[in-house]
Structure formats: C-alpha cells, structure tokens
C-alpha cells in the first residue's frame, strides 16, 4: 500500500484525476505498469521525458508527473528523435496507440527502428481508434467490426513486432493488460536495452471495440486476453498448429546493434580529435 501511495504522489499529477478514460479501459493498467517500470529503472524524474501523440492512449502523458511532450497524431517518434539527438542523456518513453503508431505514424515508426535510436516505444494496442469513435485501425484483426467496418474489416492487420524487426528494431516485447506485472518487467527490459525498443501492450477497449464485437465487458475481455496468450518460452515448446490463435507474450527478440545517438556523438568527437 505504501508503495502505491508513494508512486501515486511522486509520479501522477493527482490534481488532474479523475482521468478521462472510460470505465474498464485498459489504458490505466498500462500507464500504471509504465510508472512502476520507470520507478524500477531508478531514473531521476528530471531525466525522464514522456512523449505522446494523439488518441486515448496518448492522454496518459497528461497524468504523468515527468517532463512531457504531447504532440500531434502519429508524430511522437519524430519529436522524440530530435529530443534524443539533442540531449542523448535523457530517458525517453514514447506512448502511442495502435492507429497512432502504425497508420499515420508508420513512417516515423519504421525509421526510428531503422536508426536504432534509444527510444522506448510503448504501444497500447486496443485494435481500434477509440477517441474518434471506434474506426478500424491497421491492427484490427480481419473480420472484426468497427464503425467504419460495419460488416467486419477485410483488411489484414500488421504484426507490429515483425514490422519493427524488418525495419531494424533491436528489442521487441509483447505484454497484455491482463498480466500487468509481466508488462512492467517488459517495459523495464525495453528501457534498459540500448537502442530502439518496442513494447506492445494489448489492452481492452470495451467501449469502442468490445461492445461492437460482442466481446463482453472489461473483465471478459481481460480473461479472454489471458486465456489466448502464451509466453514465448512455452510457445517454443508448443506445436505451431496450436499457436495459431495465440498471442505470444514476453521478449520476442533482443540483440545488440550500434545505437544512433551514441554513434553520432562518437563520430563527431573522433573527427574533432
């Protein structure tokens, strides 16, 4: 209890509460996991900058008691790139939604991955545009309904982590709001990884997504999220056929490669010397 009290007082702008999210929204769970993760990294509050775009998820920045840069839809990573290059010692967490990151922000996403710049992307994936009223996003599974896909979307979704890998990201993990402790650990792992890290957090949006697709309320959505997930370790021992409809959680890949800001400043000091 004391820890919760401490985290709340230290890292939340309590005067700004209650938040705007709907009852049952998973954004609060992910935000809480992020706060605990930052606490665990031991970073100085002044050195942390939270960058966000636009959407339900991006509103998290407003409630967090850190430096914050709340930008335009899809552009958070581009702002964060300039920030990191100007002050590489700062610790950047970039909160995005699925549409925010993978549709309008897709170009910035692949290029941040390509540069392997040390930004920690936390993508809250609720499979829908929530704030604008439930339109389908590039991460809406085929066949699912949305206000702009009344008969179910025909489009195929991205696998965000495979996309990031193809673009050059060096760390990717997937967590679910139904397992907040694991999510917290994954964010810590992403933060301590040098280079571009992606943590995809599956999160229920009972209002704009669950209701239309008859997925039940928040509790049912969290339960089915948990039931359909499997850890990367267990998945390794499971037949492919059994994994077909499963969400694999945990660190999907992690390896070392030169980090852009560090390489840049090393190269200019070499040239000067």
């Amino acid at each position: 209890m004391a820890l919760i009290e401490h985290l709340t007082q230290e890292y939340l702008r309590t005067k700004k509460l209650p938040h705007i999210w709907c009852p049952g929204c998973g954004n609060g769970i992910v935000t809480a996991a992020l706060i605990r993760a930052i606490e665990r990294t031991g970073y100085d509050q002044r050195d942390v900058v939270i960058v966000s775009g636009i959407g339900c998820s991006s509103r998290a920045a407003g409630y967090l008691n850190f430096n914050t840069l709340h930008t335009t839809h899809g552009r958070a990573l581009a702002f964060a790139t300039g920030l990191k290059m100007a002050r590489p010692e700062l610790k950047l967490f970039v909160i995005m939604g699925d549409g925010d990151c993978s549709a309008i922000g897709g170009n910035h996403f692949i290029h941040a991955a390509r540069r392997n710049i040390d930004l920690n992307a936390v993508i809250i994936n609720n499979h829908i545009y929530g704030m604008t009223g439930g339109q389908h996003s590039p991460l809406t599974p085929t066949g699912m309904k949305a206000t702009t896909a009344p008969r179910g979307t025909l489009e195929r979704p991205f696998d965000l982590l495979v996309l990031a890998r193809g673009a050059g990201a060096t760390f990717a993990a997937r967590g679910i709001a139904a397992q907040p402790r694991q999510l917290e650990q994954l964010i810590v792992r992403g933060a301590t990884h040098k280079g571009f890290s992606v943590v995809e957090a599956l999160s229920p949006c009972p209002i704009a997504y669950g209701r239309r697709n008859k997925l039940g309320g928040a509790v049912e959505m969290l339960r089915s999220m948990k039931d359909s997930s499997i850890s990367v370790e267990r998945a390794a021992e499971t037949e492919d056929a059994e994994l077909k409809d499963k969400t694999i959680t945990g660190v999907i890949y992690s390896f070392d490669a030169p980090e852009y800001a560090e390489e840049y400043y090393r190269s200019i000091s070499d040239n000067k010397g």
Partner: protein
Amino acid sequence: MVQSEVKFISGNEACAEGAFYAQARFYAGYPITPSSEIAQIASERLPTLGGCYVQMEDEIASIAAIIGASCCGVKSFTATSGPGFSLMQENLGVAIMGEVPCVIINVQRSGPSTGLATSPAQADIMQCRWGTHGDHAIIALTPSSVQECYELTIRAFNLSEKYRSPVVILSDKTVAQMREKVILFTPGEVELLERKKPTGSPGEYLSFRPDDDGIPPMASFGDPHLLRITSSTHNEQGFTDDDPSNAFTLIRRLYDKIEDNADDITQIKTYFMEDAETTFITFGITARAALNAVHKLREEGNKVGLINLLTMWPFPACKIKEAVANCRSLLVPEMNLGQLVREVERACCAKEVHSYTKSNGKNIFPGEIIQAWRDSL
C-alpha cells in the same frame, strides 16, 4: 580587433552562416530543391561545432525533430521548399501552440504542388500566414539579398527566442541561389538573444504562465524545472483544458504576443521616399528589380520610391502607412497572382493601389515594373 570576414556565397549558404552565428546547433531536414544546400552545409558544419544534423524521413518529421531538440534548449532549424513547407504546416502549429522557438527556412518555388520544379515564385505569402489551421500569429522575414539572408537568419533566431515562437524565413529560389558579397559579423558584434529561463523554484514553475510581457519563461528538458509542452489547448500548467474562457485567453495571448509587438518585430527598408509620388512596395528578389526600376525612373526625373519589406508577418502596416503618407499612389509588383497587394490595400485603403503580378516561374524584370508604372498613370 577581429576583422570582419568577407565572403562570396549564395543566399542559402548565407542562411546557414547566419544560423551558425546565432548559435543554432541542431538541424533536421529532408532534401528538396532549391533548399538542399542548407542541409548539406549543416551536415558538414554542425558536427564540427558540437551540434547535430539529422536527416529525417520527411518534412513532417523534420519540423517535429527541431521542436523536440529546441525543447532541450538547443537552437534548432530546418529548411525546405513548397511541397515540404506544405507538409510542415501541421507541426508548425505545434511550435505555435507549444511556444517552442525554432526557425524554418522556406525557399519559395513555383506551385501549386510540384509546380515548375524548380522555378522561382513568391506565392507562399498566405500559406505562411495561414497554412496551419486555427487562429494564430506568425513571424516571417523576407530577405532580398545574400547579405539579408545572413542578417535576417540571425534576427530570426533572436525573435524566435525572444517571443518563444517559430519564425519563418521566406526566401525565394533566386535569392537563395544567387551569389553575392557578404560581410560576416565578428563574434559579439550582434547581440544574440536567448529565451527567458524560469527563475523561481522548480515546484512553482508553470510551463505556460506568462510574465507581464505575455511570454512564459521556458525550462529545458533535463532542467530541475519540469517542462510540459502540449499541442492541445491548455492551461498555464500545460494540461489540456477545454474551458472556453481559458481557451480564449490562450488563443488571444498567442496572437497578441506577436501582433502587439509588430513595431519591434517588423522592418522595412525605404529608398527615395522623401519626395516620392508613387511608391513600389515589394520584397525578396522582386525588390531588387524594383530598386533598379526606381533608379532608371529617377534618372528620367520621375518621383518614385521603394519600400522593401524585410518582414512579411506580422504585416508592417504601420511602418508602411507612415512611409507612404505623402504618396499619391502605390504599385505592388509580386511573383504570384496578388497576395501582397491585398494586404497593402488593407493597410493603405485611402491610397490608389496598383498591382503587377507574374506567375509563370520567371522573375519580374525592371522593365516590366517601369511599364506597369507607366500603365498606372
């Protein structure tokens, strides 16, 4: 005493020199003709100055990156041209709303769209003023020579820091790529302004609480004072706030901090105005042609004068009105279908105002201005 350095360089090079003199240490951009020389020079020079050059994936990202860098207290700039400037409009709004100092050099070229790639034009006057959505004010400076490219870029950084606002350099293809003699300033010769930093305790600091001058002090990311920048309508704490009176107070302040200081921000250069009966009012490369036309007409004994606008926005209405008080008529030559002339008409509604426009990718020549003047008699 340190001797001033004299160089023979292009307008684009002069903009880059001006930026370095002003202590700009961060550039993010995307290649586009006729502005790319600025990026090339920045990529060469900034690393030697301990600064940073990043080539971004597009112009949307370029302006985003310079805003991010500027929030760290690093003076930052980008350069582009028509299509790229169109893409920058979105985040130009962030710099306005978030009150983040930065400089955007737009080397105007023919449009719309890809247009006559890449012929000269002066047709981004209104895009620069109103291109990003919503009520706002903007500062835009218009150089007509390589020397002015240098000096106005330094001034752009100063105004940007002073007013916590983005500043646009509205250059044009001809000015940007012609080469002329430039006298570079010695260190310390020109005063360089820095944004106001918070003075109180970190606990009391609010990112958007203005001083009496309407401008809030700005912390940098990494300072003891936490900085909160947002693109949404916000209160003094930087928190999204949709209360109507708060919204109005904010929008009004963002507008007034620029428009109420037009006297400090705007500059015009006048030539032969003592006894001028007709005044040519123009800017950029067309001001050079107009000055040549004035010289020729004066040789024939005609009483004509010239106002060269070094500031386009806020519009230097008061300074123009004062300068033309004794003139009978005004002639506004410009390389577009008539964007500047409307502003001149608004500012000088009691005067007879004539327009000469050209929008075919070619510069306006002195002979055309002389002919337009004769036709107006």
